[in-house]
């Protein structure tokens, strides 16, 4: 007999016991472990999703901030550029004005120097010419220059020049006679008599000696003047010297030869 009923019953019982044992020691722990792991993984995935969403949000926020920052930076850069440009213009303008002022001051100073130099030069030339002339006349012609000048002056007075006559007749105040050299008493008297003769009456005459006249005689009343000096003759020389100096000044002028600074300033402005 292949079927032993006791064995069948025993095996049935064994199988039921085995089911209980395996449920207790195998399926339950394994399923619990699987469930726990699934829950954990699910939680981790949820957390990862949340973190991903958070990261995405932060990324978007960062991008937005970055864009705002770029815009701000561009705006600030633009503002700074404009301010710098304005400031540069202002500084350039100031520098140009200052340079113009300095140039103007320098030109003024130069003009003053020229004036002083010309005055000094003229006087020096007058003195030299007068001295040379006097020396030459004394040495070669045995003539005293001052005396001759007085003589010529007297001659002029006597020639009844309408201008001189007008001055002498119309004067109400004492006449002022300035000479570059000291007049002798005879000369003074002669002059006084000649004037009185022309004017037709006695005129008070004040005599003064001024070296700056340089071998000259100057008869002046109020608003009128008769000058008799070397200055008129030296006028051409003075003019020539002035022209020569002016040429030198013009050569040095920055307008004709702009400096590097003014060149750069011009470029910057353009």
């Amino acid at each position: 007999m292949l079927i032993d009923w006791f064995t069948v019953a025993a095996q049935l019982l064994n199988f039921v016991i085995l089911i209980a044992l395996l449920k207790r020691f195998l399926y339950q722990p394994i399923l619990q472990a699987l469930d726990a792991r699934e829950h954990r993984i699910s939680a981790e995935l949820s957390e990862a999703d949340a973190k991903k969403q958070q990261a995405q949000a932060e990324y978007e926020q960062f991008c937005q901030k970055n864009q705002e920052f770029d815009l701000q930076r561009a705006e600030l850069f633009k503002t700074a550029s404009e301010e710098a440009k304005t400031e540069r213009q202002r500084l350039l303008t100031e520098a140009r004005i200052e340079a113009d002022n300095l140039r103007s001051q320098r030109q003024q100073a130069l003009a003053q120097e020229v004036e002083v130099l010309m005055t000094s030069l003229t006087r020096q030339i007058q003195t030299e010419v007068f001295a040379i002339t006097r020396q030459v006349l004394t040495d070669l012609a045995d003539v005293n220059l001052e005396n001759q000048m007085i003589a010529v002056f007297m001659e002029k007075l006597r020639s009844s020049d309408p201008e001189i006559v007008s001055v002498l007749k119309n004067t109400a105040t004492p006449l002022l006679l300035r000479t570059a050299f000291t007049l002798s008493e005879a000369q003074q008297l002669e002059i006084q008599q000649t004037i009185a003769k022309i004017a037709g009456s006695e005129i008070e005459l004040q005599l003064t000696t001024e070296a700056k006249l340089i071998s000259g005689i100057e008869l002046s009343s109020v608003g009128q003047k008769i000058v008799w000096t070397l200055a008129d003759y030296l006028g051409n020389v003075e003019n020539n010297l002035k022209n020569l100096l002016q040429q030198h000044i013009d050569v040095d002028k920055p307008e004709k030869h702009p400096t590097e600074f003014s060149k750069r300033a011009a470029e910057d402005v353009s």
Partner: protein
Amino acid sequence: MHLSSDEVIFWQAGFIKLNGTIVTTWLLMLILTIGAKLITRNLAQNNAEISRWQSLLEVIVTLLKQQIAEVGLKQPQKYLGFLGTLFLFIATANLLTIFPIYEPPTGSLSTTLALALAVFIAVPLFGIQEQGLTGFLKTYLEPTAIMLPFNLISELSRTFALSVRLFGNMMSGSMILAILLIITPFVFPIVMTLLGLLTGMVQAYIFTILATVYIAAAAEICDLKTDN
């Protein structure tokens, strides 16, 4: 030479006897229980700490669940205890045939009949659990009451078929192996053992799947009703 391990009797008192089938079954129960206990006593939660044995058990349990679900049972955990044990017991009993002196308890008609009876009892139990006693009994009258005897015969015959199929396959495998050992003791028995292993695994799968199908058939009506 004997056909079944039932014939190997270690101890007997009246009709109570301790034969080879029972002892081998106890041995298998011990191996399965102690193995399960050893592996599941320190179950790791972290993926990096999971042992190979735990992975193996998880794979087996997950596969069983999948198979049960694929047949049509919507709550595989509920049937896992019965069907999983059925598969593990038969598979282990058959796998151990690689040991020369081992005789699988599944090679005994008493064991296979006991397993088939277990299925025979479990099917109505699960059916009643799902749809109640009346609902389950009504299934024997479907499609018409005339079909009642045929349904009953079908129940009995499929149970008998289950037991005989498993017994026949396992017993024949053991018998062929024993005969071949006598005729050609070298090499050839190894090939047959390998074939026996394959047959054993296939039989375990067939037995379990058929049991699952029977249970699913009993619970199906209820599922359909629930769906409707």
